[in-house]
């Protein structure tokens, strides 16, 4: 038991990243507000970026920018940084698309809450005049 706790403490970035991942999933699933779901997605994705960056970081390393005055510097792995930049771009584009869809849904239903949208849609369908526009 103690060894497990010691392992968890020494690997705290991974533990933190996975806790954030779990909270992100929780936020997506529990909240009925669409904007909160979107923020949950952002939290989840940034937690995964944290996992990558924590894996490439080393104790006593410096950022991978060439410094001629300090030839003995230990540079960390720059690959993950480049990859996670792409990841941030991807998550931003998902966010942008989701925002566009949310405002369209708001204009159609007058709400940003999944339950309200569901109820209004059912009302429309039950009244028999399912308007496609």
């Amino acid at each position, binding site marked *: 038991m103690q060894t497990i706790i010691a392992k968890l403490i020494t690997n705290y970035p991974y533990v933190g990243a996975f806790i954030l*991942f779990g909270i992100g999933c929780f936020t997506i699933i529990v909240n009925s507000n669409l904007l909160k*779901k979107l923020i949950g997605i952002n939290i989840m994705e940034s937690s995964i970026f944290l996992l990558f960056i924590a894996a490439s970081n080393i104790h006593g390393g410096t950022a991978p920018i060439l410094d001629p005055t300090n030839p003995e510097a230990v540079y960390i792995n720059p690959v*993950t940084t480049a990859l996670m930049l792409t990841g941030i771009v991807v998550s931003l584009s998902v966010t942008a698309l989701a925002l566009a869809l*949310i405002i369209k849904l708001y204009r159609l239903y007058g709400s940003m809450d999944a339950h309200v949208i569901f109820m209004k849609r059912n009302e429309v369908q039950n009244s028999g005049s399912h308007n496609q526009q």
Partner: protein
Amino acid sequence: MAAIISSNTPILIVLVLLFSAYLLPIFSKKRYKIVKWLTVVSESVLVIGGIYLAWKVLTTGQFNYILGGWEPPWGLELTIDPLSVFFIITVGLISLPIAIYSLPNMACQVHGERRAGWFFTLFLLHIAGLCGMAFSRDLFNLYVFIEVTTISAVALVAADNSAASIEAAFKYLIMATLGSGFILAGIGIMYIITGNLNMIFVRRELALVWTDYPHALWIACSFFLVGFGIKSAVFPLHSWLPDAHSAAVTPASALLSGLAVKGFIIGLIKVLYIAIGVDIFTALGISTLLRILGMISLIAGSIFALSQHQLKRRLAFSTIAQLGYVFLGLGIGNEAAISGALFHIISHGLIKSVLFLAAGSIISQSGETEISQLAGIGKKMPYTMGAFTAASLAMIGIPLFSGFVGKWNMILGSLESANWLAAIVIIVGSLLAAGYLLPIVRTAYFETGNTANIKEVSRSQLIPVLVLAAFIIIFGCFPSYILELTRQAATMLLFN
């Protein structure tokens, strides 16, 4: 010039698609004709390039194309192997007729020519994403192309701006992003274990160290399974698919049902077979899981399809059932079963796009979406309904149609590995497919209804459907070329 083109074919295919995708919005406002020509030309480049690459792979074997002059593991490479060539051909053959079908009346379906230009931008971006997914041999590169495909697919679902489609698109976006989050987390764990992202290097490293980290690897595998499972709609994770595929405009639903979900299966195949290796994931019990998931989604998807009364929703649920076949074939995991599963990918892509396009024609001509109201339509729209019937028979697996070849190979594979249950499930699935498709055909031909004002669709929309239906029969009668490709792909996946 010819030498330059022939040595750079793989990247040029993707580039032509991307270039024309971004040129379309510039032209769409004033010169809508250029949009049509650019779409058709770039799709044709895809088909011709795919066939050329297939000829090259079949004659000289697989080869790599290195981007930016950096060798792997530092740089990115595109690998042209039987699997990727097979998928490129699938994409080309299916998407070109869909594009031609959608060109004449897209502007009226999505309210305006400018929006139609954006629709084709998304269409071509989606196809470029699928091509990139087929070519990439790098886990993170694969992830980026998966996201390109997903985002464009979501936007394609939302294209016609109706309440139902936007709602379905948002649902799809949330589910798919959850899935890609799981995929990226899986890639992260693999990177932490092996320190590499190139699939070949990952497998080489994993073969040495996997016994030290069995739990971490199992978690990574299950993350991949959940992520790709959401995106390719395995049974318990399928809830977005029926809404999205039935609410989208007809060409979009044909494209998504016929190609997009298969693209994610290709991604799963690459991760499991090339990056992890067949021995390791079988030892972890993943192939049993794949088999069970396949059987459940086959049976459950068929039963859900039986209970649907709307034409497009029934077809959407049948997609879930048919993807079950592919998962089952991958789970059985011997050469015959995998090549059968791959053959089923192309044949189901053709079949499902015929079914969706024909259904779209029927709905737009008659205005009815319920199956029971299609009575007598077979006499009024003989060619469309004929293609629909041929595709239905192929889906059931009648010999001389393409659906038979894949299923036959999968049954052979399951008998080879003494897996009787899988063989029985495959046959039961065929019977269930007959149960949910043949009533539509029967209603259309043998019942009489009020069909006075219904006419056959215009020629430009009829010919693509008939060409796709012809491909179903051609691949059913002469499957040898495609089977050769899938067999080589299966050999590469198992013994490479």
